[in-house]
């Protein structure tokens, strides 16, 4: 199944959520907006849903969700939202503009600057000196530090990377290792980083495609969802788990899709916002 078709299925799932579960899920409105925007970027079929969700998602507090979700949803709201929500999104991005260094330093800075300043078309390249030994320390923090470096130096895949072999191949191995342990977030982030270095993992893409659920969401999560069901903590809701996984799954599939080259920051952020 193509990424476009999977995005359409995810959009269908999201539409059902939007129709039936929205009142019970005010805390995941940003995640819904971000996912709708991503679906719309991957399939025109989802554009009406993205418009509806973005206009209907209120109230929004962009300081609450994790950074990528906040940025994607803020830019989506600026493009499709109502006057009042657009004003909130603009306030948030202006605040980020003040606090995020220019030029950006960390991968979070890079993401924020891409959302605020836009991503120019260009043919820039970057040379990375990455230590292969860090990929066989068994230390997840070392892996995360490498991923942040790759995201930052390649500007999330918008700069062509020059890197010595066998680093990309080893990174694919680390990604598949994380996926086989069902650390989806780390595994998919590593797959995307490997793609930024020019290494597309067919095995990784297949893993994500096979993780699609019948309803269009992603992940073999019966046990995790059962735990959430049994938890008394109000912040533990199934959608807090399912929405980010769906976002990351589609994002990763899109970055790994050789038939239709993507680039989240290029496609979703594009031009600069008027800060």
């Amino acid at each position: 199944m193509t990424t476009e078709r999977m995005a359409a299925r995810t959009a269908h799932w999201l539409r059902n959520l939007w129709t039936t579960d929205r009142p019970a899920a005010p805390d995941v409105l940003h995640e819904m907006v971000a996912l709708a925007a991503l679906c719309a970027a991957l399939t025109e079929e989802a554009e009406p849903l993205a418009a509806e969700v973005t206009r209907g998602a209120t109230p929004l507090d962009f300081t609450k969700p994790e950074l990528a979700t906040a940025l994607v949803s803020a830019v989506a709201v600026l493009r499709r939202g109502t006057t009042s929500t657009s004003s909130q999104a603009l306030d948030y991005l202006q605040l980020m503009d003040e606090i995020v260094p220019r030029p950006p330093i960390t991968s979070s800075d890079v993401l924020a600057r891409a959302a605020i300043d836009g991503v120019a078309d260009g043919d820039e390249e970057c040379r990375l000196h990455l230590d292969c030994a860090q990929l066989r320390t068994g230390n997840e923090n070392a892996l995360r530090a490498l991923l942040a470096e790759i995201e930052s130096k390649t500007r999330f895949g918008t700069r062509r990377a020059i890197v010595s072999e066998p680093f990309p191949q080893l990174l694919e191995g680390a990604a598949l290792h994380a996926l086989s342990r069902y650390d989806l977030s780390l595994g998919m982030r590593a797959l995307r980083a490997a793609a930024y270095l020019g290494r597309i993992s067919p095995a990784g893409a297949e893993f994500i495609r096979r993780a699609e659920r019948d309803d269009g969401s992603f992940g073999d999560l019966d046990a995790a969802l059962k735990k959430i069901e049994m938890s008394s903590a109000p912040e533990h809701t199934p959608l807090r788990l399912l929405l980010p996984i769906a976002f990351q799954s589609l994002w990763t599939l899109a970055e790994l899709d050789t038939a239709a080259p993507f680039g989240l920051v290029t496609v979703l952020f594009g031009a600069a916002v008027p800060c």
Partner: protein
Amino acid sequence: MPALIDPPDQRMLLDGTLTWLRANASFFDPPQEDELLDVAPEDIRPERSRKAFGELGLALRLAKRCESIAEHDDLRWLSRTWVETARRRRIFFDMRRRIHLVPLLTVACACLAAHGHPVEEAVASLQNVLHRHFIDRSESSAWNKVDLKYYLDLAGVRHEFPSDEMLARTSTLTRLPALPWATNYDWYGLTHLVFHLTDFGRRDLAPLLGGPVDSIREYAGIALAICLARQDWDLTAELLITRLCLGVRGEPLDREAVRALVENQHAEGFMPGREWMASAIPEGDASARFFDVYHPTLLVLFLICSDLALQ
């Protein structure tokens, strides 16, 4: 072809491995097989001490084929000790009824023959067992059949196993299990099939499979990268040898894997196993440590020998 392992690394790996093997030779000790047991011979299983002994024999057999290291003092001592142990423990005792030991005893025949020791009597017993028409007719995987067939052929024992072509084409080599879900068992299947079908790199696998082996090389490469991330040095060595047997030599990934082995070889000379890496071996439990580390340590010797033999 150029060496995969640079000479200084090879020396360090080899010296460390042989030093540790010699220091731990007493652990490579099968049971006294002619002791009378209160158990039916047909129920006697290989168990780990017999397997360790057999695997040491295999490593020494391969080393014997490498001229440049065959005369190493420690290797000669280990080979002599292994042969003496085989005789002292009467490993072929009652072998016609100990059917679960047939694969290990076939290996032992090949190892003893490689060291120039007569095995006619044991081979005759094996032949008798094979003539009973169950060993080569029982249900088992292509992997198990290829392994046993390889050593039966070496020992000169006649059998009715299918041809290597047939076994290769019905094995997982033609449809390898998807990498994210593949288990260690799957990867040991891959490595053993390649070891034996290629005669440790001396024979081209492509004609047996009826097509190119590029996808198997690539698969073994990604599996190797996964094992490096897992710090699984046992499968790292197995997959490195597999890639050598498939004609991959000195690619950056393989050199990185060798670096990982060099860096992780313990000061005593052994290569840490999975339990060791997980810090799961009880303090002071020498036996638990031995059975965790001996296999990856032997694989380092296998790797060195494969690298030397295929240059």
